[in-house]
């Protein structure tokens, strides 16, 4: 099988930079990381300098995702040799046990870390992940709430909690978590859009209006966010079609929906330019928007 460098005609520097990008973006493309990382380490390990340790960590975690225990152990052993008493490496050992579904042993590992260092957030979060993996969402939620009381600025944790609540269909609490995220990241269009989706799902006229406002806000922050555009269209359409709204609100929302429909059609035409296959999508969208207009009036 051809090597990554042969297949894609890249040098080791590009491979290293790609791994860095994936680290920074927190991508979970584990198969690719394993492919690139394994080759980089074995063929060019000596050129990586101090970067090699963080790459070992990244590749080890990706290897666990791909059931490559051999590769995971290799990386882990190098890290253990280099950093013998490190809690960060101990956490990786724990993750390996999790991957092997030896959850009780893994939990003991993390508790040992926490005995030594009660502020170790990584170990606490792993314990919560174990609860999630074992299908104990209520306990995971409880522990995560306790964690957030102490570490109120941990965005990753707030986001995880919002997802846990969404999966339990507790949309009110999920909305609360997303509100925390929006407050600390007012320019993040994704949080706005997700908040709008949660409000829409909660239902009821007030929530629909709120959802429309936040879809609009997400669009202001990023006018290419298709989910926000579709969301604006759907929420405005539903409000306009509701028997409970007055004539002015109905008229305004029909206007918003019409604007959104226009933008959606434009976006599809732009995307469909030149490709035969996409013509069907364009047509389907046009028809969908037309059919919804009928129900609105």
């Amino acid at each position, binding site marked *: 099988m051809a090597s990554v460098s042969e297949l894609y005609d890249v040098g080791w520097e590009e491979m290293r930079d790609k791994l860095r990008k994936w680290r920074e973006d927190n991508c979970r493309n584990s*198969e690719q990381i394993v492919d690139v990382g394994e080759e980089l380490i074995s063929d060019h390990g000596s050129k990586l300098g101090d970067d090699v340790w963080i790459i070992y960590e990244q590749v080890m975690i990706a290897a666990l995702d791909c059931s490559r225990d051999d590769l995971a152990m290799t990386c882990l052993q190098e890290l253990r040799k280099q950093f013998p008493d490190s809690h960060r490496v101990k956490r990786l050992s724990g993750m390996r046990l999790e991957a092997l579904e030896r959850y009780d042993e893994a939990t003991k590992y993390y508790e040992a870390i926490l005995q030594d260092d009660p502020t170790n957030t990584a170990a606490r979060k792993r314990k919560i992940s174990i609860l999630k993996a074992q299908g104990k969402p209520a306990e995971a939620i409880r522990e995560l709430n306790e964690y957030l009381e102490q570490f109120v600025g941990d965005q990753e944790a707030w986001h995880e909690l919002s997802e846990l609540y969404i999966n339990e269909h507790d949309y009110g609490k999920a909305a609360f978590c997303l509100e925390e995220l929006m407050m600390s990241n007012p320019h993040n269009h994704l949080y706005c859009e997700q908040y709008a989706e949660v409000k829409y799902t909660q239902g009821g006229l007030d929530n629909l209006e709120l959802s429309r406002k936040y879809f609009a806000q997400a669009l202001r922050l990023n006018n290419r966010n298709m989910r926000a555009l579709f969301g604006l269209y759907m929420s405005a359409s539903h409000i306009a079609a509701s028997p409970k709204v007055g004539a002015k609100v109905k008229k305004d929302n029909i206007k918003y929906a019409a604007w959104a429909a226009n933008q959606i059609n434009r976006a599809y035409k732009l995307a469909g330019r030149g490709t035969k296959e996409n013509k069907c*999508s364009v047509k389907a969208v046009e028809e969908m928007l037309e059919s919804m207009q009928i129900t609105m009036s």
Partner: protein
Amino acid sequence: MPIILTTQAYCKMLLHAAKYPHCAVNGLLVAEKTKDNKKDPSAPILCVDCVPLFHGTLALAPMLEVALTLIDTWCKENRYFIAGYYQANERTKDFRPNQVAEKVAARIAENFGETAIVMVDSNRLTMSCFEPIVVIFDHHENKWKSRDVNQDCFEDWCEAQKITSSLLEGRSYEQLIDFDNHLDDLRNDWTNPVINKSVLDLC
């Protein structure tokens, strides 16, 4: 009239699950409309294709509504109708339909009474596909009951096994497009013509 699956439908479901092993995934199953006078009431409904919908968070309404409406429109143009819903849960050990599955299936059932839920048992997903890994749930007396596992639910299991295995080994799932991918970039085609061609080429 229980539903049965073609190779293309089964294949794309598994590719979807394989592309996002760490997420829950879901999608719709579509069948061809037959002329009423030709329809044999006891003949099973053949799901010829599936449309992968989302990965990750499945329990939010707005994009699901958009997808259902859009796909419904597409179905009408192609003389298809939505006949079922598939889902693979986030936890591999869990293959029972949850509230999301039941809600979507109920929505589909408004137009097609014999809607089935097809749950993918990711725990048994292997490259060789030596056994079918779907559990089909039908709606009886207000409950979703799983079908007898020995009941054959494939148009041609041998073909399905051979082709699915081949595509998994070739990592074709990297090219699978779901509705989420489409929303990220409208040029991504959720009808998956590339994968459909690969399936056809292997037949």
